[in-house]
């Protein structure tokens, strides 16, 4: 990830260049270009079905664009596997929480450290010496995240038993455990009440400030988006219709039309 480290805050970290994506005959994304700058909070908004989640899926390699290129930290690629995206420092959360349900909060977050752990199979068999030391080292890191997200009380609870809001938080924790350069958040506040949304907003801002993580997020709550993000991309029917600061986007006639259009 030296490539990403070499980029200074404010410079382009990821650029999406003329990307199109289609499933069979259905076009999900059409010729979209935008960039994400290092250390910013970038929001992707748009009405339902605008192709926002597909965009995230393209960025982290789950879908392969039919056309266009994506450059991340200076390297351009057309096809990439999801775990390669992970290796390069792209982490994400999912619209419908995708936690490892059979594992505890701690184990979920520890799973996020997998890439950073490299003690060999032999030591894993013994779970002693270097393997244990490594395990402890990463446990410490995960504990920092647990402390950061204030989820101490549920450390050893199986995540399947947690309420939705907490699950979202654990999922964020798991993504943070990867020490990502770019963090993709797919509707981090969906289904939350006001208080939970406030908490989550605070965590997102803190992550951005404390770890300097670049964040791209999809969110429907306009108030939250306007407050949180530095810049916003607006998609509609798979096309980009606006791109700019919250103030610019808010004033954009096309955006207003798109949103008035969907809100009956």
């Amino acid at each position, binding site marked *: 990830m030296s490539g990403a480290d070499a980029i200074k805050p404010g410079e382009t970290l990821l650029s999406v260049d003329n990307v199109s994506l289609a499933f069979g005959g259905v076009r999900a994304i059409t010729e979209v270009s935008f960039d994400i700058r290092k250390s910013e909070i970038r929001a992707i908004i748009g009405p339902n079905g605008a192709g926002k989640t597909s965009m995230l899926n393209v960025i982290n390699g789950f879908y392969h664009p039919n056309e266009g290129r994506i450059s991340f930290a200076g390297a351009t690629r057309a096809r990439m596997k999801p775990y390669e995206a992970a290796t390069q420092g792209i982490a994400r959360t999912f619209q419908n929480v995708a936690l490892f349900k059979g594992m505890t909060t701690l184990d979920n977050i520890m799973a996020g450290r997998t890439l950073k752990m490299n003690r060999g199979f032999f030591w894993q068999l013994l779970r002693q010496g270097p393997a244990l030391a490594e395990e402890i080292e990463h446990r410490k890191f995960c504990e920092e995240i647990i402390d950061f997200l204030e989820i*101490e009380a549920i450390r050893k609870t199986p995540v399947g038993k947690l309420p939705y809001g907490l699950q979202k938080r654990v999922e964020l924790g798991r993504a943070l455990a990867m020490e990502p350069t770019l963090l993709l958040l797919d509707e981090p506040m969906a289904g939350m009440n006001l208080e939970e949304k406030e908490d989550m907003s605070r965590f997102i801002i803190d992550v951005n*400030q404390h770890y300097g993580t670049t964040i791209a997020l999809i969110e429907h709550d306009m108030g939250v988006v306007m407050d949180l993000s530095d810049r916003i991309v607006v998609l509609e029917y798979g096309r980009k219709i606006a791109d700019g600061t919250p103030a610019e986007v808010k004033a954009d006639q096309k955006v207003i039309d798109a949103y008035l259009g969907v809100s009956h």
Partner: protein
Amino acid sequence: MSTTTGQPELDTFPKLYARNAAQRPERPAIRRKDRGIWQTWSWAQSWEIVRALAHAFAGLGVGRGDKVAIVGSNRPAMYWAIAAAQTLRAVPVPVYADAVADEMAYVLENADVKIAVVQDQEQVDKILSMADRLPLLTHVVYDEERGLEDYDRARLSPVAALIAQGREALAKDPEAGRRIDASVAAGRGDDASIILYTSGTTGRSKGVVMSAGGSVAAASDTVAFDHLNDRDEVLAYLPLAWVGDHYLNYAQAIVAGFCMACPESPDTAQQDLREIGPTFYFAPPRVFESLLTRVMIRMEDAGALKKKMFHHYIAVAKQWGEKILDGESVPLGARLSYRLGEWLVYGPLKNTLGFTRIRTAYTAGEAIGAELFSFYRSLGINLKQLYGQTEAFLYVTCQKDGEVRSDAVGPAAPNVSIRLTEDGEVQFRSPGRFVEYYKDADKTRETLTEDGFVKTGDAGFFDKDGQLRIIDRAKDVGKLKSGAMFAPKYIENKLKFFPNIKEAVAFGDARDFATVMLNIDLASVGAWAERNNVSYASYQELAGHPRVYEMIEEHVDEVNRSLAAEPMMAAAQIARFLILHKELDADDGELTRTQKVRRGFIAERYAPLVTALYDGSNNADIRTEVTFEDGRKGAIAANVRIVDMKRQASQEKAA
């Protein structure tokens, strides 16, 4: 184990700290559940940190007599900051972390705080917002970095950095270490050790100044009294700024050399308690009460057999447990039965509550119900009562092992003298007695008598066993026309120990006899009604139900019997009572926000009822304005029945 006798020089906490570091360097001094495990610091490590921090504080200009505010929850860093300040002969001033900005500003301003050690961004923000009111404040030290990245660092430093910086300096410069040593050695018993601000129920809070020697002496006495030693462990979960925390955890820990553990977060305190399993424990009665309620509610869902077993053994414990605890002779069968109960119920129960290792537990602050008190004691927990005040540096009285009762608070603590004034006020003189109210000579003079006694403002009396009973605030204690003492709160508390009675308001000052207005407890009486097929449509209907009246009448009668047993109280037995048709409500101004009855206001608001209580009528009409939950106002009218009670003959006289 009076550590200080024969070593008069150990009269400050830093000196004792140094002694602990030398005598038991490897023993744990402080723990905190942090990052998932109990991070532990030994006395040697802890003292090294305190010294480093003291050095850094000195670098920030803190010197003898300067005030250092401590704002935060129970964290090692906060306790180290207290000790570091004391090491420099500066005076720590712990402040309630949840205080609103204005309140906090008053305390910090009043205490002339020079630096503040705070927990996190929230507190930093609070203090920065009041910076213009605190001209003397030069620096803020914080524990948690989070959210503070972008703050101006000129007057802000993290405590970890200070410790590191101090540590480095001490390592580099032996002279710096000697300066710290010298400062410790120069400490004297009459140095101000700490200023504890009382949360004034009336008016502004006052800064209670404690002397180092007094504090150490008081703590040494109780450490010896309860045989505390360096194998003990406590969980520091009480507010840092409250005398209880400072005394029970900080002072006693340093004197006895035991370890105090800080919980991970307020959410996990219960779990942390269970993990640590303290050997010495303090909690106010309401904590014990809510714990008991939770126990009973959880047991409700247990299977029939288990429930039966539970209640059977709780009954066994009720009958024999306290006797066994007090070392009285108990039949062998009962002893065996109790042992079985210990294995099946008490042991596991104490385990789940985190009480397994408790050797000594105290409760204080308000009256505790006999049932509640016995419940815990019957399980084999050595729960005792004490009576204390900030001005005494906590202990005024405390109960000896084996001489424990729920209705009294024990004889005077070691080296404490207590006297009662003619009108029943309790006054004491103790080793830990405060020096003065900070910058408030008038108040000090008001509280301290010429011969060095402190006026507690509480009324009480010694019962025949020589244990003190606290009746009420002295100013609230009135007299019946006959001249007999009338202590409304005493009566009210007795009534409120019945689960069916939620609130009670007693009248009688300057009257011929005592009367009460009662509120039934809807949950409890409602459950009773369900069991007994009593149907009702509203609170009002339930409150006026003849069978409810019958039940409550029994309760009142029981209270009268108990009052009759106490010579000073016998005259103030309840002559008449009524059950109010509505619940007393803070929204209507009838209760304070802390759920205390406002007797005067109620007397005014329900004047027709009060009149009726004294004019002999059997019922009275009342119409009251109420505020509904949604803020609308309305009125309820009711006809309330009044019941005459038979008063018992005073047993003392009868005997």
